[in-house]
């Protein structure tokens, strides 16, 4: 599947990091839809077509892993990648398919997403 036919749902509560992460993914050719919370992501997911969810871990309300659990319960096949500034893998990270560090740079992020497509 070509990158431009893949839509990624980017979830992050922080506005600037969310925007920049969306921009680099777009520059790489992906289509991006952004959500500012787990709740918003769930709403978008129900109404739209997505190929992958890339979510921050530490968010108020619903954490990344809680979002992963919720998504997997309705879309078990939906690829889910967790991105975090904390280098510690959360205890319930197994709901996510992959874990990627924020400081790995854009290339590490692309490499983490690519094998899924």
């Amino acid at each position: 599947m070509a990158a431009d036919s893949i839509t990624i749902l980017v979830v992050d509560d922080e506005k600037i990091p969310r925007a920049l992460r969306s921009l680099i993914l777009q520059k790489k050719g992906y289509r991006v839809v952004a959500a500012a919370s787990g709740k918003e992501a769930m709403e978008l997911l129900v109404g739209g077509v997505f190929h992958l969810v890339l979510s921050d871990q530490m968010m108020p309300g619903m954490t990344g892993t809680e979002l992963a659990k919720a998504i997997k319960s309705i879309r078990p096949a939906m690829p889910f990648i967790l991105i975090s500034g904390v280098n510690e893998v959360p205890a319930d990270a197994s709901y996510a398919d992959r874990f990627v560090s924020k400081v790995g740079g854009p290339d590490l992020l692309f490499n983490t997403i690519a094998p899924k497509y």
Partner: protein
Amino acid sequence: MFKTDAKMTADSNADLGTRREKMSDQDRANILMVDDQASKLISYEAILGPLGENLIKARSAREALHHLLQNDIAVVLMDVSMPDIDGFELAEMMRQHPRFQKTAIIFISAVHLTDVDRIKGYRSGAVDYISVPVIPELLRAKVSVFAELHRKSRQLERLNSELERRVEERTEQIRENEELLRERADLLELATEAIIVREMSGAILFWNAGAEALYGWQREEVLGKLVHQILKTRFPMDYSSVRAILARDGKWEGNLTQTTRDGQEVVVACRKALKAGGNAVLEINRDITAQLKAEDALRKTERLAAMGRVAGIIAHEINNPLEAITNTFYLLRDHPSLDEEARYYAKLGEEELIRVAHITRQTLGFYRESRHPVPVSIPGLLDEILELQTRRMEFSNITLQKHYRSRGTIQGFPVELKQVFLNLIGNAAQAMPAGGTLRLHVFESSARHSRRPAVCISICDTGIGISPENAKRLFEPFFTTKSTKGTGLGLWISKGIIQKYGGAIRFRTLSLGGHNATCFRVFLPDAEFQKIDEPSGVDLATSSAEEIVEGSHGR
């Protein structure tokens, strides 16, 4: 024949009365009165009655003997002239019987010279006579003396037997005390603490089995020697202060550093007390070396954990903006509106940013603890460690040789694997204070027994080597050759981690012509390893040199 008892005064009667009351049945002496004439017996009875003694009457020598056999008689008062058996004959019979040899006899007789002579013939025992007419006071006095004598000797006998009983009791007590002392001595030997008694001068008087076990010195080797000289004791304060406290309080407590027979330093919790009399010191020492090390290790672990938590928080706060800036530069880098110069500036900024990201990964990410195994590249891990060590190794004039012949990726936890190799590389570097060569090999192998594919990592140095006696204890907890600098836990923990992966750690140390080579080899099994080159089987440790020691630890 009898004079009236004119001299008996009222006072003396009262005295006798009092005495009679005071005397118990047991104290009363038996007085045997022997006469064939009943009237005389009655008058003796009247005369002696006031004495308060027990009066027994016998009408014949035969009857008298009967009473003698049945009672303990103090005095026999007998008429010399009696039909059948006279007084002398009776006395003769009594003297032949051992029991009556000392029984007092008072003969009553009309004064005949012959009688007096015969009476004087009785040299042994208490014999007396009273001539007729009997003077009541005299009779009473004589009987009284003998009765008293008898009572005294009976008392003496009682005292003697009481004394014997007490001696018996005391002997029993002493036996019990001895038993107790033996028990206590056994307890002293049972104690795991070192129990020592020494003179004030320090000369050892007592040294229990616990002391033998702790210090390695046998009792007979140390008795009489100076304790602190033998054990090279170091006090936590000036020794004169210890002595002063001991003199003032009679006791002292504190930790001492001492040296065992084989040269090992031990820390003991010591309790000293001055012995009663102040001429000796009792000392109980408990080995707390391992306990102190464990506490120290725990403190270090806690400190590391705290540092890890802080690092995690800082990492998060730095990493979030760092990602945003990195992404900004990524977007900026190829932006069409930038001219050559601006692009150059952006490139410089991005390069520096990569350095920052790198540092946070190296340092702040160092404490991260993953909960699920992730793919870990062993060469990548080694490079990360080497990067932290580069400056130190350059400073120590250590040359590095790397041969990575496998991608060596295994499923694992990066933090603990890093700890293993940081330990091994750190040890190797420390073994070469004067410089040398550190060789790192990563290649594919198979676990010795299971034949499962494994990544083999070999870390070799040309340092000071490992002596055979140290080699035996290398993987023991708290064993360290680095004195106070090492916790002695590094290799022990490393071995534990490696075993958790189903792996093994082995080492060899070789010595040839003054040159040493020490190789640690770690096997980490993994099914998913990928080959870069054909495994070359490069094997430094088993190459030519003469082998001294091989230690094999793990499965």
